[in-house]
């Protein structure tokens, strides 16, 4: 019969229309600024720099190795190395970034910087409301704006942060054990002979693995 298909389709729309009054599942939209969907743990929007402890400047994990700057596909990271050094999380003196800028308008949220970072220093944030009225300075985030605490990282990505902490603790324990063994060996040597031995105790090869360019 001509028109049967049309009527069948209309019955389907009628079913959906009536269903939207009884079934919550059919109402899929959310009125955004007032209503929000639950945040998704895996979400990635824009990178931030992780710091340990209370002081963001002293606790930054970044050692300005510039691997992320080199690997970033749209080249939105800008790093300047410091002239002096500060101790990192295992107590080893390290260079730190005197300048670390990321351009929000260029970043494409791909997470490559996070994957290539050997120091677990850069992670992805879930904050997505980054709009600003100043399109030049406001979109270029400097290291102070990028620095966020490890507690914040735990709050937004609990699973990943726990893994990262376990990995870092393991590394730290390894470095400490090595330093202890070296110190003991040096002490034993000093006790045995009178020579002023003291080899450079804790100097583990912690150069970034991917420097060979």
């Amino acid at each position, binding site marked *: 019969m*001509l*028109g*049967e*298909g*049309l009527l*069948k*389709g209309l*019955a*389907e*729309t009628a079913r*959906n229309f009536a269903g939207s009054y009884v079934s919550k599942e*059919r109402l*899929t939209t959310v009125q955004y600024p007032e209503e929000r969907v639950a945040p*998704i*743990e*895996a*979400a*990635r929007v824009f990178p931030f720099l992780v710091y340990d402890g209370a002081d963001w400047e002293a606790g930054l994990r970044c050692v300005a190795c510039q*691997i992320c700057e080199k*690997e*970033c*596909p749209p080249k939105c990271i800008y790093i300047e190395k410091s002239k002096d050094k500060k101790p990192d999380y295992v107590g080893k003196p390290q260079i730190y970034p005197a300048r670390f800028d990321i351009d929000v308008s260029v970043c*494409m*949220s*791909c*997470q*490559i910087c996070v*994957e*290539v970072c*050997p120091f677990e220093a850069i992670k*992805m944030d879930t904050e997505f409301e980054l709009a600003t009225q100043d399109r030049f300075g406001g979109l270029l985030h400097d290291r102070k704006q990028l620095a966020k605490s490890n507690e914040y990282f735990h709050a937004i990505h609990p699973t990943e942060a726990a893994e990262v902490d376990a990995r870092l603790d393991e590394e730290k324990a390894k470095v400490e054990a090595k330093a202890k063994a070296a110190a003991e060996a040096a002490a034993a040597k000093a006790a045995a002979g009178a020579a002023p031995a003291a080899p450079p105790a804790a100097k583990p090869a912690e150069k970034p*693995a*991917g420097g*060979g*360019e």
Partner: protein
Amino acid sequence: MSASETRMVGSGGAPAMQAEVELLEVSMGPHHPSTHGVFRMDVALDGEKVVKLKPVFGYLHRNHEKLGEDHSYLASMPYTDRLDYICSLTNNWAYALAVEKLAGQEVPERAEYLRVITAELTRAQNHILAVGFLLQDMGASGTPLMYGFREREKILDLFEALTGSRMMCNYMRFGGCRVDASPAWLDGARKVVAGLPGFTDELEALVCTNEILMARTQGVGILRPELAVSAGVTGPMLRASGVNYDIRKVDRYGIYDRFSFKVPLGDHWDVYDRFMIRLLELRESIKILEQALKDIPGGPVIDPKAKIRNFRPKAGEAYGRIEAPKGELGFYLISDGGPNPYRYRVRPPSFVNLTILEDMCLGHNVADVVLILGSVDIVLGEVDR
């Protein structure tokens, strides 16, 4: 231009007198709502009939291939998301496959399953969209498309929960996948897949027997199999023309030899067939998804020997291709042993499928051009690159 190079006008014989036939040249696009992006068609019309059609593209050119030569292998992966931005996961897979061939890498079992699951979910949502937009072009303004969007939203939520992004997934890596799927994610995927057959039934009841749809699409835009093959058309377009060619069956890349599914073929070669083929393929994708989600094994998701930094495959060349939702998507890479590819070439299905547009449109009304273009299912990010 010197005088000797000036062309002689009218030297090829007397021009025919055509006072009564005046062609109207219309430029459809690049900002026409039916062109699915920035794409232009220069159409010459005799009344309502199309006598000439010239596709003009390049408005969205982003230098993708040259960027690929300039960036490291890994840094090109997020750019592949932006080729066909509806189906980023299949783009990832094709590129990863090419690099794995180049570097001779193996992929763990679980990663292969995850690739199949994500790729088939991508195919499902692409076909839902393709059908929805085709109906939108036909004037069914909103309803079928919005039903499709409602379903696609569930799939995109799955993508976000797994990869962190809804459309720019950047999920696959050379030698596996970036992150593992949690049991909760797999359960969520099972739930979404269980809802898909009901949605397909609903969509079929909504439009498939609709008299207006049939009148508009049946017998329109016929693409003969011989022409389709010689033009290099692939994907649902080719299968709607009755040619049994599906790279999942031909190459059996990944682990596609483990799943039982059929390849639907059209026998009228028109827009309606291309519409129906996508719905039938959606049903086959659901079958694959059910099987894959049932027997996904445990284990690692990335080859432990895979390198993230300082990845330099040995010199050589490789072509990796997969059956993307729109057709054969291939990446051709030449390595000279350095950190960047020496040559990086994409074989995009939309671009090749689009070359046949004029042959399908000739002799049809200008309103049908919109439908025929819609049935090709193009994404301009991939056409222009």
